């Protein structure tokens, strides 16, 4: 029985393809993600993106909501230093990131399910790499529903 269970768990892990929500920005990171597609660079189709005008508009509760709705991870494709709107965009985003991680911890969700990196408008290759790496990390963490 125990052996069967272990086998079932292994089978489950193989079939598990983590769901990732990407929060991008209309003028900077979303064009980078577009470029990855235009170049036919592959990343898992379980990655889906919502674009906003600016990383600083993201509310921590959206991240919590996504993980509660069944996303296994949230990736913030941030403006970094290139934000056209706010000079302190990177600082604001970093603060929001910390708040969100704290809120995840309070809910018993691993803060590793939230990642952030600056993605520029030509960062196609880095984006696909992040998606593969994050996917790997989340596969090791297992489905969010089991936490």
């Amino acid at each position, binding site marked *: 029985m125990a052996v069967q269970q272990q086998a079932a768990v292994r089978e489950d892990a193989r079939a598990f393809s983590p769901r990732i*929500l990407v929060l991008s920005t209309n003028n900077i990171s979303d064009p980078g*993600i577009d470029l990855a597609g235009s170049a036919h*660079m*592959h990343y898992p189709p379980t990655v889906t993106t*919502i674009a906003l*005008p600016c990383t600083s508009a993201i509310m921590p509760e959206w991240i919590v909501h996504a993980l509660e709705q069944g996303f296994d991870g949230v990736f913030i494709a941030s403006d970094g230093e290139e934000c*056209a709107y706010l000079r302190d965009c990177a600082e604001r985003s970093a603060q929001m990131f910390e708040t969100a991680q704290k809120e995840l911890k309070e809910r018993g969700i691993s803060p590793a399910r939230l990642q952030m990196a600056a993605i520029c408008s030509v960062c196609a290759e880095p984006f696909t790499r992040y998606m593969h790496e994050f996917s790997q990390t989340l596969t090791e963490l297992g489905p969010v529903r089991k936490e």
Partner: protein
Amino acid sequence: MNRRKIGVYVCHCGGNISDYVDVEKVVDAVKGEEDVVVARTAMFTCSDATQQEIYDDIRELGLDGLVVASCSPKLHTFTFRGVAKRAGLNPFQYTQVNVREQCSWAHTDDRQGATEKAVRLVRAGIARTRLLRPLEPTVVETVPKTLVIGAGIAGLRAAIGLADIGLSVVVVEREAEVGGWVKDFGPMYPRDKEGHELVRQLEAKVRQRENIALFTSAEVVRKAGSFGDYVVDIKTHGKSAMTMQIHVGSIIVATGFDTYRPEEGEYGYGIDGVVTLPEYKKMLDAAEGPLAYHGRPVKDVAYIYCVGSRQGDAGPHQYCSRFCCSAAVHSALELYSRDPSARQFHLYRDMRTYGRYELMYRESREKGSTYLKFAEDEPPAVQKGADGRLVVTIRDQLTGQKEVRIPADLVVLVTGMVPRENDGLVGALKLPVGRDGFFNEIHPKLRPVETVVDGVTICGACQFPKNASESVASGLAAVTQSAAMLKQGRAELDPQVASVDPGLCTDCGVCYETCPYDAIRPKEEPEGRRVAVIDPATCKGCGGCAPVCPERAINLEGYTQAEIKAMIEGLAREVV
């Protein structure tokens, strides 16, 4: 909640989408979604025929929501907003869903995965559209006057263009003279027009026009107000130093470029006889008859390309500077015209004499120029030989990696353009600067001279390296854009801005400090309460204030808290 009537259109994109996504299956999966009254596929959604079909559906079915699942929103958002508007649907009750760049093309290896993802994306688009409110653009009155910053060839030409359309123009130039780099140039490609002559003609035209005011030795120090009526402080230096304030409807930035200065020792820079491309151009333009250097005739010239450009991950200048291949080849032709027996060697990584400049490249080879290709990791070396002449050593990639030693009287480092130091101006105008240090347009193809700051356009080589004719072309694009904004006397601003729910606002004051554009101010309500209000004409629509509000009283139109949460739910729901 009232029922909505939403139409959903999923595009084949002639196979670009449907080769990798089962678009019929997507339509089947979403046609039962709440409030969807019509869902179909189309071979090309952007075609006139399908636009007409959408138009008819909006009219006949009384649609109050539109979802188009096709390419990136960067391409056709304005197309479909236009369809909606023509058919009487508010253009902001439409959602563009990206199932090409962010779905079919990214998952060409997984049809099932891509199809499921497309279903989720379209569902999220529907969920958002159900909550969208009709928005009306903020209309602002515009001052029929434009400020042009920089009086190089692009700025001068732009000023003349604006004036001839009937707008007033103020031109501000930091230097004492107009004309920028071009005023010092002799013959320029492609037609060998003399640079200083072009500038002389442009300056004369500027001075003839009564509706152009030109200020040299002057700088922009501050900008206030909002699109349509910017209040700009200009400071002039020198004898008539003063500060003045002007009102303008729009601003064109044409501040140009700087040239790359090689490091001491970079390709032998610092050794006598090793010069940069602009230094060489100056020598050529000044020479009468064959070229001489320190009184000695110049017979052998070696050009080293890509100096300060395409620097790889380590350098600050990773971009190709575009103009330099053609400029160097043109200089080589200029030398041949003075001395057909000159021996010229071009040491390059990749030649990019694009478009018709290819003809100059061919002509240079016909006249005897030799082209040798070096590898990025094995650049040529420049040394002073025993006889006092220069020697360039290169491992030629095209002749079996042979090491070739080229004696030269002059070595020309083909240096590129670099962004100008403009911190004061960038701060005053809040101009978006890209990773490469040049100013950023909203979109290189679709909105090539506009910036995220309404009414502020960019042109010329402050945007990216351009030659003179490209600079002038972009200057004229900025003219058209500026005039289109100002000639109507009124302009429509994107209504997707932030707003405060006065019922939730407690006047805590946190948001007043957070907006760098000063769009948020306190306002007295009739019942003696004070709440925050956001000026829609000043708000840039970034949404940065929304998460700052502890009461969550601020929402960004088109990206409200309810809309984003609904999208997340639409994406998360299982695909059966």
